[in-house]
């Protein structure tokens, strides 16, 4: 259920690299339990913003809170309360599924019994129970991505950040992946996602579109389509970003 209770608040966020303004005065809120799509052309400043919200980079100025914690002073608390997954870095290829899970469980300080219970439940849900001791490197890409996501939310974070999670994945796996996202949302996890697939933008509750370091549009996919007189998000995006 989406309430209007914000889990991410961004006020006047600015990030400069020298003279280059990567994020130019961003303002938005992400509500608890929603899927928030974060779109934009390459180089529009998406990655910079995500890094700041994940506590990996310090903004130049602004007032930002993630899961109730300040991005300037409480980055450690933020990291404890979020999950992160990207297409590039997901899991250790030379470790088995079980070893990866144990490692991340350790990183987030999960209790052993709790980790084991959730692992069993998760592998069962993914149908991977028999593959616990397989090396990640031997798995097909689609499995890896689904596993990476499940492990990213194993510690039940308040928010999970997904940076192009479905790049290059086959269409069936892509949808299975989105089903996992919906399941996570049902458990009350807020999802913050970037993607280059415009149909995926329509799976989001609300979508923001960045261009040249600014947010140029932010609304539900329906309202955006209405506003830009477009039949799908692809058209909306092209009209805005071009």
């Amino acid at each position, binding site marked *: 259920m989406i309430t209007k209770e914000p889990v991410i608040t961004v006020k006047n966020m600015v990030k400069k690299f020298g003279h280059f303004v990567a994020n130019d005065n961003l303002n938005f809120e992400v509500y608890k339990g929603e899927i928030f799509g974060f779109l934009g052309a390459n180089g529009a400043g998406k990655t910079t913003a995500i890094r700041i919200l994940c506590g990996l980079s310090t903004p130049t100025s602004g007032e930002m809170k993630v899961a109730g914690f300040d991005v300037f002073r409480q980055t450690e608390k933020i990291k404890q309360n979020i999950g992160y997954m990207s297409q590039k870095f997901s899991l250790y290829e030379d470790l088995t599924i079980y070893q990866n899970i144990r490692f991340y469980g350790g990183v987030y300080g999960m209790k052993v019994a709790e980790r084991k219970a959730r692992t069993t439940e998760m592998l069962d849900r993914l149908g991977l129970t028999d593959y616990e001791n397989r090396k990640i490197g031997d798995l097909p890409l689609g499995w890896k991505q689904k596993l990476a996501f499940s492990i990213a939310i194993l510690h039940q974070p308040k928010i999970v950040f997904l940076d192009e999670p479905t790049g290059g994945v086959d*269409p069936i796996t892509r949808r299975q992946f989105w089903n996992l996202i919906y399941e996570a949302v049902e458990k009350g996890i807020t999802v913050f996602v970037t993607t280059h697939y415009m149909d995926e933008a329509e799976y989001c509750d609300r979508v923001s579109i960045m261009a040249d370091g600014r947010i140029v549009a932010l609304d539900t996919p329906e309202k955006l389509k209405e506003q830009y007189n477009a039949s799908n998000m692809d058209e909306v995006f092209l009209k805005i970003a071009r």
Partner: protein
Amino acid sequence: MIVVNELHKTYGETVALGKVSLTVKEGELFGLIGPDGAGKTSLMRILMSLLLPDGGTATMNGLDIVRDYKKVRLITGYMPGKFSLYPDLTVEENLQFFATVFGTTIQENYHLIKEIYQQIEPYKTRRAGKLSGGMKQKLALSCALIHKPEILILDEPTTGVDAVSRKEFWEMLKRLKAMGITILVSTPYMDEATICDRIALIQDGHLMSVETPLAMMQAFAEDLWAVRSKKIYHTSKLLGQLPSMISVNSFGQVLHLVTPKGKHTPQSIKEFLSLHDESELTVEPALATIEDVFILLMNNRKAKS
């Protein structure tokens, strides 16, 4: 013209290409559509003679890709999947280098790359490593084109590139095609398929179908329904239990439900859903997209094996 005859390639136990046969006609814009690991890159590398096939043969404009590989390389332009230019050389120096390597000059073939290169020319003294994704891709295409190739082989040129740059890139390909260049291009984005003259859907090293996009969509063998509802995820779960249902997938805000030919009507589907307290919805027949075709063929393959 590219003629591929039963090309076979394995890595250990993994089959990268399983006896693939294919013909790309002269002056055709041919798309190789499939996810990562489907075998697109292997096929292209074999055609460029960067890999040796384990079996089968292929010719490019009549030249054997193994025996005449030197000649093949002269008549083809190739853009690998990864950005492969020198990041410490400027835009102009990169182009100059590849022109000379292929025994030509920028001036000689400028007309070919003019439209593409003009967009990055203002930045010609900038180092290639400092360009944005879209500009890098334009430079790479310019470099692949500078020796006036008869055939262009492009390995996922639009992967990781935003929707705007992707659109522009396909526009450029259309214009190159108009100049008579044969183009083989691969992509994981199914929506790009419709721009191609013909496409091959590839999965696990096998071609599932080779056709024009339109014929492929029209030949969709089962019934396809577009279902709209307020609670899309919930509805999708319910439809998964519809008797004899083949698949249900979300396409944006719409669900695509596939059922065997003649098995269901909008009415019967609605009735099934209303049994489960779902009533606020619409069901109407829909035209298949390439992605629907791909999913159906993938499911058929899975069912067979």
